[in-house]
């Protein structure tokens, strides 16, 4: 901001110079536009020529053409080789969003946990976390993805599967097989109870705040709400008579039938993305908490606030302003890094649509354009959120 004013000052330097400078600026910009235009014309001309010569199709008609290849992972919608490339796009997009979403959740929990451990007064614990963070951050993510994938593929074959909890969970090189939940009558009450609990906890938090303002009495809001959010759905589950069955996997012939198979491609990618990003997030969290000066803690304690309240009322609100922006950009990085799926064949948008579809149709320009557009949209959404947040919480300074 200060720089802009500096440049405005430059612009209004002297009246005699002004017209001259404006002319120079106009001339320079015209030159830039001219060069860029010429460059574009050059590229468009070459591209048109090359496309014609190589007999590549143009346009987006291929989105309606049959893809003709299989995709191993499509948890959200039916997909077979007869579906269109447009469908491939959707399957890939959802797979990208799936692994990114789950990765963000895991990375956040792990990262915050590690960041707090890093600040632990216990020297040994803090050192162990430090080593983990340094090691993870300084090895390329692609390598970590490959390593996890290699580890999952090195698991025993189907016949020698590792089974846990009485054959309920089965682990082999084809993936992790867990029972498929089959909700029965009345199960709907459980999610309903969860939603109710969420509303109730919001209500309780507000009520507690109001009561505190009026009478000064402090209620254990966090504990109560946690109990409610966990307890209410459980209660509903018990009252309706545990209406949940599981379809267990069984070995039939050479493979397991039934159950939900979580493929090693997904697990490897999810592990690697979460562990890698968690290392960065833990540093962000550490830096954020350390950015709050020690004087704040001292002032708060001198006023008689307990350490836990000091954390909640003084340190965290200030640290969050520092933490949230780099944290969102880590989320963005994770989403972009999920495109490394292509290295191990997890069918995200880059592997399926940007990879196989591109090779089959040869329509590189359209395919890459669409793929990039997806990431750009996600980026814009996230950075839009970040700007909104920054404006909301920025400290008022003199």
């Amino acid at each position: 901001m200060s720089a802009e004013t500096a440049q405005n000052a430059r612009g209004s330097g002297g009246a005699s110079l002004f017209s001259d400078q404006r002319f120079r600026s106009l001339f320079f910009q015209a030159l830039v536009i001219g060069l860029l235009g010429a460059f574009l014309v050059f590229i468009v001309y070459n591209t048109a020529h090359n496309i014609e010569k190589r007999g590549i199709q143009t346009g987006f008609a291929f989105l309606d053409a049959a893809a003709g290849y299989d995709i191993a992972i499509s948890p959200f919608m039916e997909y077979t080789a007869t579906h269109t490339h447009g469908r491939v796009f959707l399957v890939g997009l959802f797979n990208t969003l799936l692994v990114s979403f789950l990765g963000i959740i895991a990375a956040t929990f792990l990262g915050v946990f590690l960041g707090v451990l890093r600040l632990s007064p216990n020297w040994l614990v803090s050192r162990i976390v430090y080593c983990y963070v340094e090691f993870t951050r300084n090895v390329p993510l692609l390598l970590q993805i490959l390593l996890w994938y290699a580890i999952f593929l090195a698991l025993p074959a189907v016949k020698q599967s590792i089974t846990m909890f009485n054959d309920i969970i089965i682990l082999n090189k084809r993936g992790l097989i867990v029972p498929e939940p089959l909700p029965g009558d009345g199960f709907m009450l459980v999610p309903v109870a969860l939603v109710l609990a969420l509303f109730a906890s919001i209500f309780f938090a507000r009520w507690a705040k109001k009561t505190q303002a009026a009478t000064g009495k402090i209620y254990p809001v966090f504990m109560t709400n946690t109990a409610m959010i966990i307890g209410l759905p459980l209660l509903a589950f018990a009252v309706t008579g545990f209406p949940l069955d599981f379809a267990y996997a069984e070995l039939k012939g050479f493979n397991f039938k039934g159950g939900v198979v979580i493929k090693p491609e997904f697990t490897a990618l999810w592990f690697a993305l979460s562990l890698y990003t968690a290392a960065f997030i833990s540093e962000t969290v550490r830096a954020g908490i350390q950015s709050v000066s020690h004087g704040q803690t001292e002032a708060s304690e001198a006023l008689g606030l307990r350490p836990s309240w000091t954390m909640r009322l003084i340190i965290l609100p200030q640290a969050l302003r520092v933490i949230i922006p780099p944290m969102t950009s880590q989320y963005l990085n994770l989403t972009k890094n999920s495109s490394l799926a292509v290295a191990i064949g997890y069918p995200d948008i880059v592997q399926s649509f940007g990879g196989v579809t591109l090779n089959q149709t040869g329509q590189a320009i359209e395919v890459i354009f669409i793929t990039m557009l997806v990431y750009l949209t996600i980026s814009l959404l996230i950075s839009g959120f970040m700007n909104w947040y920054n404006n909301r919480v920025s400290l008022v300074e003199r």
Partner: protein
Amino acid sequence: MSVTEQQYAPGEHPDLPPPLGEAGLIAWFKKRLFSSVGNTILTLVAVFFLYHVLSAIIFWTLTGATFTGETKADCDLGGACWLVIGDRFHQFMYGLYPTDQYWRPNLTFILMVVAIVPVLFDNIPHRGKFLLFSAIFPFIAFYLLSGGWGLETVDTDEWGGLLLTLVLGVTGIVASLPIGIVLALGRRSNMPIVRTLCVCFIEFIRGVPLITILFMASNMLPLFLPEGVNFDKLLRALIGVALFSSAYMAEVIRGGLQAIPKGQYEGADAMGLSYWQSMRLIILPQALRIVIPGIVNTFIGLYKDTTLVSIIGLFDLIGIGLVAVADVKWRGLAPETYAFIALLFFISCFAMSRYSLWLENKLHTGHKR
């Protein structure tokens, strides 16, 4: 407590050592490991965890590992089978570079060290002359590696392994610095068209994953070129990597430009310097100095990201690793291969991040004084 405190005249009290257990090693242990019940439990858990992890790692990498032998069958100790690394060591270093020409990458590497040292440390004698060498080093390196004019030509297809990784990293940073500076200045320019163009370019590149840019470079770039002109795979990858890192570099440099106090800009104006003069003589030298740690961090990211070229079919360290893993002779030795590559990356990236940290500290103390 102290039953009879010895009396001293005011101002005569000597410095006494702290009571036993209040300072030194014992106090340190008490404070940092066993200060409370919870802390003690944490320490015990950590020791237990560390013991198991470390013993597993030591067993796998050293005591249970096989270092000598010919084939995979020799690896029967239960730990890692490092034979695959020995067998393919040259490939990991040079790719398919002709064996009798290894002296060329070796010499280039030594020259690279000579060229980098004066850039990294500002307290060596005759720094100016060395910097001159640093400036012309990329051309020497290119000549040495690709040949021509008396040297046997080596196709870029044959470059690989660590050599290729270094080529990509160094070219990426050398190319992205000037482009990044231009973009950063453009983004802060008061010419709306220039500014818009720079913002769009930077935000576009930063909004998409590197792999899509590499796909673009390898699939779309050939379509953009006139008939008959053909960029080889390496050049295409280099263009992608350079464009990618220049956007990030631009943001780092912009941070530096923003940190320069307004007075400096005004001062330069008051001296009657033109825009380019004030940038070159006053603003950029200061801004770049501030952002060197940021540049090093960007470079660490770039260096790690160069591994993505293995996806578009180049044989960098990971590309060679993938070939080694696919070798029937060494089937199933992926963990060993990846662990070796990870170690190479860890050493270099960790060293660089330490350097950047050191610089930051130096910079901060410099500001205080």
